[in-house]
């Protein structure tokens, strides 16, 4: 092991060690508050190290990991999501009576899995990262046990996760069979030398696509999403919706854009269909939901469809980097908005799964104007109305798709966004136009998160240029 190796995984190393440390301390200290603070410190420190990796462009462990700006960008999203998840969970766990230190430990392990996913450049590492990020999430989904919904969510998530993991491994095996290597740079080299068995490789790639499609909840592999999002504790769901999705897309982008651009002729039609299906089904089914968590679950499916659109044109080298940066920007905008929306959901949620129906939001506009305004901002951002992050994100995404020449897909995207306006704005209408007697929690960290994300949604959209520039520099290093 060389210094470069160590340097390339240094943030990851810090986080894993820190997680082990917190695990031990948690046993002895028995102070949940301290655990929270320690976790936050660990994440912030890791964030600092991650940022310092910007522009370093390291490779380590025999090309098994690549730390490029793409990875740094995603790591920052993961760590930021972790911090937001902590601030959401802090009071929520107490309120739900599930305040145990392992929550934070598992959260950190899951984040380390995601970070590994972002830097992975070897199929074996991808698989390990997938497991490392997923296993804690299975447990976290079931964290509110013995509440049946939560146990069910954990179980379902686990079963389907294992199932999808099978696809990934099978895919990896076929790719290995076709190219005799699991390393992305090796695979790219074999293809370039015409040494690869293309049909086998394609099928392996397709299976990998299917496996990760489960993780990012793409139709028709999305069925678990509503059940799991609904059953899992809300703070976990918020984190899962961002972290797992971003990690899944990180893997897809890394594998397909960096290593398999030559397969685009075969893969693109599939991605096209998946993206279109996801946008259509996600948005239409969301219309029929009356529970806010299920609605947001379908909304997250729909957004996965939008992000997947960016991958459609991945094979065109002139458009690929624009598409990737559009997808990265969209991930960020989705992360900010989504955390905000979930913060509001948590504020309105009561124990025993009450306070989750859309009707429970009636009258909030009058009684809690600030909260309602924040929720309205998030809903508008989800819809893609300026001046919100969602609008900017969609704008670049659609532009990248059109640049790639997929006008039909862009049209589907726009039309489904139109449908989405119906159910997002319905929340706003219910909040402001219906009378009700809502009760809302006011917890300092929760309020802070809501305010922060709401302001970020607006302000970052107006000053989106630096972030966009940052995202556009976050290019994948190709092989």
């Amino acid at each position, binding site marked *: 092991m060389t210094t470069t*190796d160590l340097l390339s995984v240094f943030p990851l190393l810090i986080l894993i060690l820190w997680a082990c440390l917190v695990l031990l301390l948690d046993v002895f200290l028995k102070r949940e508050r301290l655990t929270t603070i320690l976790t936050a410190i660990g994440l912030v420190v890791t964030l600092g190290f991650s940022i310092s990796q910007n522009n370093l462009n390291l490779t380590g*462990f025999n090309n098994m990991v690549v730390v490029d700006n793409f990875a740094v960008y995603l790591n920052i999203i993961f760590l930021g999501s972790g911090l937001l998840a902590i601030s959401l969970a802090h009071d929520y766990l107490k309120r739900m009576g599930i305040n145990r230190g*392992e929550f934070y430990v*598992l959260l950190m392990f899951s984040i380390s899995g995601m970070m590994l996913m972002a830097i992975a450049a070897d199929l074996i590492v991808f698989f390990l990262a997938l497991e490392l990020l997923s296993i804690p999430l299975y447990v976290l989904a079931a964290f509110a046990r013995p509440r049946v919904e939560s146990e069910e969510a954990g179980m379902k998530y686990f079963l389907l996760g294992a199932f999808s993991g099978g696809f990934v491994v099978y895919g990896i095996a076929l790719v290995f069979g076709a190219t005799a290597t699991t390393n992305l740079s090796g695979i790219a080299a074999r293809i370039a030398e015409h040494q690869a068995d293309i*049909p*086998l490789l394609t099928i392996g790639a397709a299976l990998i696509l299917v496996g990760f499609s489960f993780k990012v909840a793409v139709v028709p592999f999305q069925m678990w999403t509503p059940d799991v999002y609904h059953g899992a504790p809300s703070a976990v769901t918020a984190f899962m919706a961002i972290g797992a999705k971003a990690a899944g897309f990180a893997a897809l982008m890394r594998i397909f854009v960096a290593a398999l651009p030559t397969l685009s002729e075969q893969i693109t039609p599939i991605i096209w269909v998946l993206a279109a299906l996801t946008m259509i089904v996600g948005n239409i089914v969301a219309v029929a939901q009356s529970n806010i968590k299920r609605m947001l679950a379908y909304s997250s499916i729909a957004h996965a469809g939008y992000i997947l659109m960016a991958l459609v044109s991945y094979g065109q080298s002139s458009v690929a980097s624009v598409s990737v940066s559009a997808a990265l920007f969209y991930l960020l905008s989705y992360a900010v908005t989504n955390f905000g929306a979930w913060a509001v959901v948590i504020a309105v949620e009561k124990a025993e799964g009450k306070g989750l129906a859309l009707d429970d939001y009636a009258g909030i506009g009058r009684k809690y104007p600030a909260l309602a305004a924040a929720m309205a901002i998030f809903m508008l951002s989800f819809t893609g109305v300026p001046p919100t992050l969602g609008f900017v994100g969609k704008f670049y995404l659609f532009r990248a798709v059109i640049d790639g020449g997929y006008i039909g897909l862009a049209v589907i995207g726009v039309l489904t966004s139109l449908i989405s306006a119906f159910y997002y704005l319905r929340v706003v209408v219910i909040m402001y136009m219906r009378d009700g007697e809502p009760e809302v929690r006011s917890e300092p960290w929760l309020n802070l998160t809501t305010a922060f994300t709401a302001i970020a949604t607006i302000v970052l959209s107006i000053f989106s240029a630096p972030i966009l520039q940052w995202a556009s520099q976050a290019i994948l290093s190709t092989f």
Partner: protein
Amino acid sequence: MTTELILFFSLALIAIITGLGLLISKNAIYAALYLVLNFFTIAIFYLLLGGAFIAMAQVSVYAGAIMVLFLFVIMILGAEKLGKSNTVAWQRPVAIILSIILLIEAGYVLFWRTAPVQAAQTLPDGFGGPASIGNVLLNNYLLPFEITSVLLLVAMIGAIVLTHKQKTDKEV
């Protein structure tokens, strides 16, 4: 050559039969024992390919440790007899059809290749031995190796969290 071929085909037959037995058997203990047998056959395959270490690992870890655990669990739960399956009626035929299609597809992929099949190479000395595997594992595959250890730790924590008696119930 021929002895190897005979050995291979007879072992393959055993592997398939034990696999099917595992699926069809109504008694969980029998199923587990079929699986042990299956693992042993696979271990011999590894031996035939020159992977002595992997064969040993297969026997001791899978056929030995894991299967013993399986048997323990089955016996402790008292779930030797599988109850009447409460699956949906159409599930079984669909599953059969799907597996047949998958089989055909897999075969198609295997037999229809574009890249030339390379001649088998003579393996270097000590290939697949404990020393060389240790070398590869701790040099080339150091990162996956370490991550796996973290993964196991996480799985352990998860299992404890999920099965651990609720303290919070009393605290609340």
